[in-house]
């Protein structure tokens, strides 16, 4: 079953229906021509269909399994979002086509910008960043541009809590900033004293998520905002956890100046086995002049609404372009459809039920004996279980539980993140899962611990997957990154 498509290749085999009728040779000078023949597979259409259909079946996915992967918001991806985004008029539209031939598309984009503003409480939205990390980049670049525009040239430090996602510090570095790590208090909130000590004239800003990746809402957020603002810094909101608060609290109201949203999380565009996503950014009034382009504008024209792009020279302080065209337009269309289907009340409800599911699962797991990282706190839409006792006493690590769960037909929660909680599982059920699924998951978790207590080792789990546990060390040491036929 592990046969590669290349191993099915035979000289001269073709999927003939896919080749345009053959033509003569091209008028390309000898020196520029390709002479070798790259070894792409030579296979029939049926072979391709069968190969990739079968491969697909070796994946876990939302459509087949429960996926309580903390920080990732693996919720149901409505099928309609996909098909509507692929309607010929959308899928076939050239990115450089004139706005006269894009009013329908642009209307969706404009309305999406407006809805995202409403949900986040920000003043402006640019849809162009192609994933959360690119949204972060845009945000930090805007913060830099803001300070620079004010002549405040020394501010090159970005404060990042130790619980932050890896993209936060990596982004700061990409922007040429220095990262200052901030410790977390024992209750999961930011250590206010440490924050006060950290801010100063070099502070460009702070990158936060709230609720944080620890699964708790930072109760001191208003004070945090004040401290940072008073020190002259700006607040960046990592919107990966927006699903927890959508329609309940808005980053803009908390005091954030800039935010990215992972539309592939909160607004349910699919993760696609690794992407594409979208990291639309929202800004408060201070950062409006610096937004990345392009941005869609609506004007009244002959009594009707007319959509076009804000021209580059109308936003001269913009941090510029982040993609060849306008970002992941097709992803944005999916998010638009999703938001319209969920609607005003649904926006709030998704946060409420995501939170209900997380708190329920947290309570149930606690009741069957798992240790919570923050037992005194409400869960947000996710929460953390730590297996430090199990690891010590029955040699059952977070990794073991993760792999054992696969054999129960559940995807593993996020493991070993955030880094500050030992042997942790970050669990996010999302609002689209039913109570029965959560109850069954608790049963599986309980069974694993019970078996481990009975002496069973899960070091060799999983047993029922297409492969057994893989040798990652060998993968890194004996790099095999592409198939080259023997000889």
């Amino acid at each position: 079953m592990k046969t590669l498509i290349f191993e099915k290749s035979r000289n001269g085999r073709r999927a003939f229906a896919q080749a345009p009728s053959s033509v003569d040779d091209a008028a390309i000078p000898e020196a520029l021509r390709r002479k070798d023949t790259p070894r792409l597979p030579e296979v029939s259409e049926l072979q391709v269909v069968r190969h990739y259909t079968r491969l697909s079946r070796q994946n876990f996915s939302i459509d087949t399994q429960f996926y309580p992967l903390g920080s990732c918001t693996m919720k149901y991806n409505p099928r309609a979002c996909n098909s509507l985004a692929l309607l010929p008029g959308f899928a076939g539209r050239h990115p450089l086509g004139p706005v006269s031939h894009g009013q329908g598309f642009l209307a969706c984009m404009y309305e999406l910008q407006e809805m995202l503003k409403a949900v986040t409480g920000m003043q402006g939205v640019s849809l162009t960043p192609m994933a959360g990390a690119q949204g972060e980049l845009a945000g930090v670049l805007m913060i830099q541009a803001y300070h620079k525009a004010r002549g405040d040239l020394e501010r090159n430090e970005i404060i990042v809590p130790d619980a932050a996602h890896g993209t936060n510090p990596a982004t700061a570095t990409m922007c040429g900033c220095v990262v200052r790590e901030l410790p977390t208090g024992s209750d999961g909130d930011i250590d206010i004293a440490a924050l006060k000590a950290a801010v100063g004239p070099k502070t460009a800003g702070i990158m936060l998520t709230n609720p944080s990746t620890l699964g708790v809402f930072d109760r001191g957020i208003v004070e945090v905002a004040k401290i940072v603002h008073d020190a002259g810094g700006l607040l960046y909101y990592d919107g990966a956890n927006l699903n927890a608060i959508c329609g309940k609290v808005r980053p803009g109201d908390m005091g954030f100046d800039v935010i990215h949203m992972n539309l592939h999380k909160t607004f349910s565009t699919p993760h696609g086995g690794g992407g594409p996503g979208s990291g639309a950014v929202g800004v408060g009034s201070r950062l409006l002049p610096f937004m990345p382009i392009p941005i869609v504008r609506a004007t009244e024209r002959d009594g009707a609404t007319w959509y076009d792009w804000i021209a580059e020279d109308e936003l001269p302080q913009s941090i510029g372009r982040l993609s060849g065209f306008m970002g992941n337009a097709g992803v944005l269309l999916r998010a638009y459809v999703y938001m319209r289907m969920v609607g005003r009340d649904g926006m709030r409800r998704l946060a409420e039920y995501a939170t209900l599911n997380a708190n329920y699962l947290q309570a149930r797991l606690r009741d069957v004996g798992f240790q919570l990282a923050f037992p005194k706190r409400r869960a947000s839409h996710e929460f953390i279980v730590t297996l430090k006792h199990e690891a010590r006493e029955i040699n059952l690590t977070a990794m073991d539980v993760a792999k054992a769960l696969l054999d129960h037909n559940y995807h593993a929660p996020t493991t070993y993140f955030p880094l500050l909680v030992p042997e942790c599982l970050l669990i996010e059920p999302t609002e689209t899962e039913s109570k029965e699924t959560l109850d069954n998951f608790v049963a599986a978790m309980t069974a694993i611990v019970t078996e481990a207590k009975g002496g069973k080792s899960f070091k060799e789990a999983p047993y029922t997957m297409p492969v057994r546990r893989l040798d990652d060390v060998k993968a890194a040491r004996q790099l095999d990154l592409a198939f080259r036929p023997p000889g």
Partner: protein
Amino acid sequence: MPFIPHTEDDTREMLAAIGASSIDDLFDEIPQQLLIRSLDGVPPALSEMEISRLMRERAAQDGAPLCFIGAGAYEHHIPQAVWDIATRGEYYSAYTPYQAEASQGTLQTIYEYQTMITELTGLDVSNASLYDGASGLAEASLMAVRSNRKAKSGRILLAPGVNPNYEKVAVAIAGSQNITFERLPMNAVTGNAADQLDAGTSPVALVIQQPSFPGTLEDVDRLTDWAHENGALVIAVVNPLSLALLKAPGSWGTKGADIAVGEGQPLGIPLSSGGPYFGFMTCRQEHVRQMPGRIVGRTTDLEDNPGFTLTLQAREQHIRRSKATSNICTNQGLMVTAATIYMALLGFEGLRQVALRAQQNTALLISKLTELPGVRRLYEGPHFHEVSIRLDRPIAAVLDALARRDILGGYDLGDALLVCATETKTEVDIDLYVDTLRDILATRDLRRA
């Protein structure tokens, strides 16, 4: 409540298990003054039926114009099997393959993709994708700075044919790290790099785009050797489809390019207003540890059977954090799945047929267009499937007139028009364009054409 499965009983039982009396209780750690009560900016929910009708109307609203625009995104026929399979739930709704044992489908697909794209570009290793071609150049520039330790200038040279938007994106993304981008001078006849070049002090890399943005074919061998002689790495920016006809970056000059990046869109990805596409990146083996993005490797499992897993993760943000090669996390995975299926379906011979047909359609279009009065080529020399032409009328006004007749006539370069006819165009389409343009050019007042 769309997509929320809870019954009233469920909610009640769950709250009881939590020990909360209402859902609102679960939000009681949030400062009360921050809670909002309603979301006026979001309209009430639509059913799937209602949103479907709305979207169908919007998608139909702009017609289906005949499109001769390229400029970095190309209309190609996409075999139906590509997206039928890529949108199977198991590919579509899966996460990043961090749990390798439960993600062999995606992992093997990426491994096959890495193989195909390295074969196509003639380089050793590939990552699992970047966001798009333009941001790919930014990442390649940063990577070159890390790889070319000797060159400390931060100077990246750009051949004249590099897509201006790619430069803008590279400046925006990589610009804060003391990297500068400089254009080499152009030969006004060929549109390619000038004959006499001066590399300046220790350039980090030279970026060569082939085919060039205005549609010329650059002398890549000469430029590559020149760059290497000056201690610079060579970053190739290529259209992957063109590699069915044109020399692979790995074979440029004596030593070959060091890094190749480009827009993966021509490999089975719909135009879709500009995305999602994917940026590909391949390089020589020696640079692999400087590569940004995910990489899949083949290894073995406990029973010594082959299997696939993400590897060299120590380069990435989730491990290396502020010292990572890039901040990229979510990439364009599904597009890579589609491109892999596309390449498998076409094979090299199929790609060659598509490329040949596109080349010849464009040749036909150009030969007919340049018969019109006042229309001539901007640059001499061979081309792939895109060519710049001059008109003796204002380009924007001509394009407007064409658009009113549902023909998107090309990309406005300011002083010229960049036109493209891929394999999707028939002779009838080409004649329609030519005849319509003849008509328009014959009109005095273009606003009435």
